[in-house]
């Protein structure tokens, strides 16, 4: 009975992997097109031609591009992301801690923003076109319209400078106590919440309002259900697929789109790491981070697709 679902899910996952492979080719090709020579940038302008040739030989830069691509891909698949040119450190090791930091921040921003967005969306539908709806929509719009760096500095100004409740710089280190860590990420997490809240809330509202036109909502009304029960029990389950979609898109943003916020709060996450190494022309690091970001995006979208499939009773329970 679950066969059509399993087949659809397997299809999505296979497509996702294929897409990821295509993205890896793009990333590799893109970094190859960039001007400049890796050996030259490592050894500096004063390097002798002999030294350059030796290093190229050593790094395998003389091999054709496709061989280097497969060597890189093989390394990625076995967990070896290569060595950073600038620091000579193992990239996988350096990314490990930063990825954890980014996920930690994204997790807490999501824990606050997703339920809040859905509840506000439900409330907006319940009191649609009334002052509650208009206030929620207005505030949410305002918070999205403000650029995230502005929201970030606003928070720093009030909470860190004026009232001195939270630190303005989110330094975290290994072995930091949980509460300390939470205090450190309070401001960036709040900024991120404000950025993603409106999008999710408005999509929730629109998706549920769309369903509220259905005949079965009238059936529920004529059974004597209260307005909020109707929304929760009869409208929400049928609006779940578009809501999951927008939630996943925002989750992805929380992980890969936080560059600006991380820079503002000097938070040691992936975004900052990427920006640093783009500046240093550290191609292997840029490739590795790009691939991880792509994997996160594709992975979350696959989850959204699968959730939408599972949420559809016609697919879950075929005739």
């Amino acid at each position, binding site marked *: 009975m679950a066969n059509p679902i399993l087949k659809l899910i397997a299809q999505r996952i296979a497509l996702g992997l294929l897409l990821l492979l295509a993205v890896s080719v793009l990333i590799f090709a893109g970094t190859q097109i960039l001007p400049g020579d890796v050996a030259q940038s490592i050894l500096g302008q004063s390097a002798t031609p002999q030294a350059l040739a030796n290093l190229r030989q050593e790094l395998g830069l003389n091999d054709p591009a496709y061989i280097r691509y497969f060597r890189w891909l093989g390394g990625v698949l076995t967990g070896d992301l290569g060595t950073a040119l600038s620091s000579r450190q193992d990239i996988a090791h350096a990314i490990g801690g930063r990825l954890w930091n980014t996920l930690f921040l994204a997790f807490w921003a999501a824990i606050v923003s997703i339920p809040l967005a859905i509840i506000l969306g439900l409330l907006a539908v319940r009191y649609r076109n009334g002052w509650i709806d208009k206030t929620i929509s207005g505030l949410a719009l305002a918070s999205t319209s403000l650029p995230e760096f502005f929201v970030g500095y606003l928070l720093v100004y009030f909470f860190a400078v004026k009232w001195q409740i939270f630190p303005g710089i989110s330094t975290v280190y290994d072995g930091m106590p949980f509460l300390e860590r939470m205090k450190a990420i309070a401001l960036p997490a709040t900024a991120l919440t404000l950025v993603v809240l409106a999008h999710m809330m408005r999509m929730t509202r629109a998706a549920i309002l769309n369903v509220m036109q*259905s*005949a*079965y909502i*009238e*059936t*529920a*009304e*004529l*059974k*004597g*259900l*209260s307005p909020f029960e109707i929304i929760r029990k*009869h409208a929400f*389950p*049928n609006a779940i697929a578009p809501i999951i979609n927008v939630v996943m898109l925002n989750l992805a943003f929380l992980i890969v789109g936080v560059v600006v916020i991380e820079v503002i709060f000097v938070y040691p996450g992936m975004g900052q790491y990427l920006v640093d190494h783009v500046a240093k022309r550290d191609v292997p690091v840029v490739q590795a981070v790009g691939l991880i970001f792509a994997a996160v995006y594709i992975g979350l979208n696959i989850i959204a697709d699968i959730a939408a499939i599972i949420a559809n*009773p*016609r697919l879950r*329970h075929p*005739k």
Partner: protein
Amino acid sequence: MAKAPSDGSGPLLDIRNLRIEAKIYPPGEAPRTITLVHDVSLSLQKGKVLGLIGESGAGKSTIGLSSMAYGRGGVKITGGEIILNGRDIRKGGTQGIRALRGREVCYVAQSAAAAFNPAHRLMDQVVEASILHGVATRAEAEKRAVALFKKLSLPDPENIGQRFPHQVSGGQLQRVMTAMALCSEPDLIVFDEPTTALDVTTQIDVLAAIKEAIRDTGVAALYISHDLAVVAQVSDEIMVLRHGKLVEWGGTRQIIKEPRQEYTSALVSVHEIEHVEKKPGATPFLSVRNITAAYGGGKIKVLENVSVDILPGQTLAVVGESGSGKSTLARAITGLLPPEQGSITFAGRTLSNRLADRSRDDLRELQMIYQMADVAMNPRQTVGTIIGRPLEFYFGMGGTERDKRIAELLDKIEMGRAFADRYPAELSGGQKQRVCIARALAAKPRLIICDEVTSALDPLVANGILKLLLELQAEEGVAYLFITHDLATVKSIADSIAVMYRGEVVRYGPKSEVLKPPFDAYTDLLLSSVPEMEIGWLEKAIKGRRMESAGN
């Protein structure tokens, strides 16, 4: 059953001078308030059934829903008293109204397929109101639901509740919805066209099930329908409504046998168009030979070895229930669904199976009219543009020549020339269908395929369309392929008939022969399922059946 003070004496439902209004927002004008129901009064005793009948816009559903103090969209009850079980429900406030909905009054919608929530199992929805109002515990309510499923002769009553709406057929869903309404043991059920969306062969089963359930549970009912013959089977009394006003109210026998108002008589005699069958002498100009067609790359066979002929200036009616392949036959003839096998010859030459390979003249000779006239027209084009398009496309007409022809065509469909500048949204349903007919005629076709063209219309309006089609046939000599599920329509318009069942033609010939006994089992079922304006017809028809309907 209810905790009402009025046991025994007064009526269960007493509506006095009901006035219902709605705010409408016409395009380009200021919003205004229109009155949908003008001071209508009615009363209903315990356990009795009152039929509400009238065409669309008569206010039937609006009055029915007012017994639950419910108005659809912007509809508001603005005047009168609605006394249920001895109290005016309009004075009960939101809480009071919510307490009676699903408890004292329940609702059965026209389309159960849309009225059930696709996300929940049927049982959860059936028992929801009973549990909400504290009528029964979940276990009790489920037990009662299973008993009701049994009474409504649903298959596998123990387990059907575990299914989702999409896993159950339309006729069965309609019965589950009736069970849902009965489950909380209400005093009154509002049936809002509960069989209209069903095939005629399924309708009779559902009708019988509803009638039996009403009798056995002693519940009172408002039965809303546009089909007088259907209402006559279940109602004790009938109320005829038009434009939100009462036309006539009386016992069922009186209404259908001795109508006092002219409008009621028109409703009673609506199906009677005399149409003399034309002689089948001439040679056919369109021959369909052994056509087999399938969807999904040959996986789902929908037409099997179908052969029919169409004679010049005559009408072939194709009848059958939904899924029998009627519309697919039309799609195959027009080339929209190229048949896998078989051939179509037209005026002596073989038509290419694929639409893209046909010449412009082939396209011109075959025109189509659809069931939904309003979605078959571009809402942003005027009537003149819509009718003028085939004139430009096929004949290269323009300017005054085209305008003259448009005016002629508007005259032919009995609409004034002034309509050329109107938009489809400004027209009534019947007028829209007339414009579609004019558009088809503009191409000067040899054959018009009419796909359920009267099914979405009120009976009297549909009658007007049928008369128009017959007149146009006499004037222009055009042939029709008339697809319908309604046998009364067939009798009015056909010269020959093809009865289809599960993709095959089971009976085919001139009208007089097809409608003459002895019948095959399916044609018999189809004919005996058409409601007749006669008290007691339902019981007789059920008794005389030889086979089960496919949708059951």
